């Protein structure tokens, strides 16, 4: 193990490296969430059930995080309710100070950490070579960052390798994909309030978290003290605990980003299929399983290398081509308005129905 020169880089900058890294990944995750929500906003008027489902998953993750916050702080959960439109979690005992602060922080950050935490556990069993933490660490800003990036890079490569060679006839793989999509549709910032808010974007969440920290500056100091303390402990014991801990937080963000990306692709697929005439709209959705099944049967009789990857590729290509062709030749010819015509008002102020 290399000797550790104690200069300002090690003592001051190195612990900051991973805080910056994790925060950057979390910001990236917020941007992806906003992209998903924008796409969902386009679909909402035609796919109300899908919008309600994503809302439900979001509320479920938020309520679980809220309940976890109350459990961790020993406040207890007196009431737990989740519905499509709202969730409600009430503590048994209202606590103040650091307990209340911690439970609120878990409410704001929980939806990004708790569901992805379960997914990380699942991926540990599916991705056999995705988890590698560097054994030796040089405790400088750059090296700490390198180790952090290396861990994330290994995991991401492993994850994409798995996704690109997934066996869709394997129930474990299919379930993994479904859970990942479920996660991608549900990760979103928390919102708690009596009034119904139509849009909770990433700026709203940033503002919430910032205000939460600014309100209690002492806690920020405590947070940094704990982080630096943990770093120096790792340094003293010459272990990589500090990097490992922040790498896990980074992995959670990476899982979240991949899940959001997949959810975005799904939403984009639904959005594209909406452009096709109603009679043909199901064809792209049927192309997915039929093309995959056909290619797997073909490769069963004509064996070759990397059958799973080729099958997925053919399935995706076939679906994209079929969708594009249908959009070109079977485009829906319905006249569309931004809102229902019967609710449109004319200049004289009288409500009139659309003429047939």
């Amino acid at each position: 193990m290399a000797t550790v020169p104690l200069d300002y880089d090690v003592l001051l900058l190195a612990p900051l490296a991973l805080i910056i890294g994790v925060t950057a990944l979390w910001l990236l995750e917020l941007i992806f969430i906003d992209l998903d929500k924008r796409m969902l906003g386009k679909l909402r008027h035609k796919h109300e059930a899908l919008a309600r489902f994503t809302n439900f998953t979001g509320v479920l993750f938020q309520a679980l995080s809220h309940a976890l916050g109350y459990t961790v702080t020993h406040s207890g959960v007196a009431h737990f309710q989740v519905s499509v439109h709202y969730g409600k979690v009430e503590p048994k005992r209202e606590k103040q100070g650091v307990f209340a602060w911690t439970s609120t922080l878990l409410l704001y950050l929980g939806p990004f950490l708790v569901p992805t935490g379960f997914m990380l556990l699942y991926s540990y069993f599916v991705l056999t070579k995705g988890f590698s933490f560097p054994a030796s660490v040089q405790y400088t800003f750059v090296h700490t960052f390198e180790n952090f990036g290396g861990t994330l890079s290994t995991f991401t490569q492993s994850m994409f390798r798995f996704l690109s060679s997934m066996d869709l006839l394997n129930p474990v793989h299919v379930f993994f994909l479904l859970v990942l999509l479920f996660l991608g549709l549900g990760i979103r910032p928390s919102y708690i309030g009596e009034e119904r808010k139509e849009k909770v974007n990433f700026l709203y969440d940033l503002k919430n978290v910032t205000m939460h920290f600014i309100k209690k500056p002492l806690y920020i100091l405590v947070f940094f003290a704990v982080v630096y303390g943990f770093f120096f402990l790792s340094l003293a014991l010459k272990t990589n605990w500090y990097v490992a801990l922040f790498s896990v937080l980074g992995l959670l963000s990476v899982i979240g980003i991949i899940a959001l990306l997949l959810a975005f692709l799904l939403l984009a697929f639904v959005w594209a299929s909406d452009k096709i005439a109603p009679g043909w709209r199901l064809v792209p959705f049927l192309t997915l399983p039929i093309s995959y099944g056909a290619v797997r049967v073909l490769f069963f009789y004509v064996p070759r290398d990397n059958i799973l990857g080729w099958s997925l590729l053919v399935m995706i290509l076939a679906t994209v081509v079929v969708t594009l062709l249908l959009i070109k030749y079977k485009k829906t010819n319905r006249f569309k308005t931004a809102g229902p015509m019967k609710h449109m008002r004319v200049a004289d102020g009288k409500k009139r129905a659309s003429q047939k």
Partner: protein
Amino acid sequence: MEKKELLKNEQVERLLSPHPLSFMKLQALCIFVIVWGIVVWWLVNSSQFGNWLSGNPWFPFILWALVLLIFGVIASLIAIQWSIFFLYLMVVLGGLGLLFWQHWENNSTSFIALFILVYSIIVSIAGFLIVELYRRSHKYYITNLRIMFKGGVLTKRERTIRYDKISDINSRQGIFGQIFGFGTIIPISESGFGLGSDKSMAGGGVEVGGTKARLFGFAGGGKEVQTPIARSYYELHGVYPFKDVQKLVENMVQSHVPTQYQKEQVEFSKQQVDIQTQMRDLLHQQGRGKPRTKTVKQKPEEDEQEEEPEKEEEAFPQEQVDIQKQMQQLLKKQRVMKPTKDETEEEEEAEEEEEEEKKKDEREVA
């Protein structure tokens, strides 16, 4: 629904049938068969357990049948419906029968696994079709007078409930219902139709010892909870759009149930009629010496009070005193009775109008 089935002045407000996803519990049974068939096929052909299962051609079938039956028992216990178990038993026996009938029992393990996969898919598709037929047999008519529930694939079932006989309305909407906008409404009648009970029992036994000494213990417990429950033919099962239908039914019930004000009015009228009848009986007694049994058309009360006792005084001086006393008591009782606020206000308004008219007349005369 034919027109002749409608009552006089009856109009159908809404015709409903269950949402396609409202029978998800039944559809889930079919989904499980298909998923488990795929899993068994995958276990034999592509998983690391393939070698173990290839030991005997019957292993995949035994595994498939066992899990299916165990799931059937668990589902039956949860749903308190043993037909689920027997349904799965029929699926297993059907598969077994087909294997022997076609002499496929001596084939390889992979063939048996493929047979299980194809058989599961066919059985599931058949199951989905039966569930869809069952769903389509339900029809609910919400008219302006009653709710009619009709259905039945082979046996026709029908229930009718009038709005004034509905004592309670129970509504429920699961997560699927909330997402897709459907839900179930159970109108509970005064007779208790629509109420059921959830029962749960647990029991266990243990036997210790061999042939000489045995110890046997049994522990059990039961709980019964009264809950709104009805068969899908006798409730508005999985109706869409739930909120609108719920509001419609609530409004209909509300419009057919007498309010507190109406009840008070009816009670007051009854008391008035009772007193008037008694007074007429007394008047008749005065006139002829025996009470009248028939109801007499009402006359202004004040005239009766003023005129008739005077006549009776002349004819029956001794009896007249008693009758007059009784009549006075009735009049007092009538005065003590308070009409509801609205009626008092109306009377006050009428009095004020009369006073104003009198004043006008006086001015005109002056």
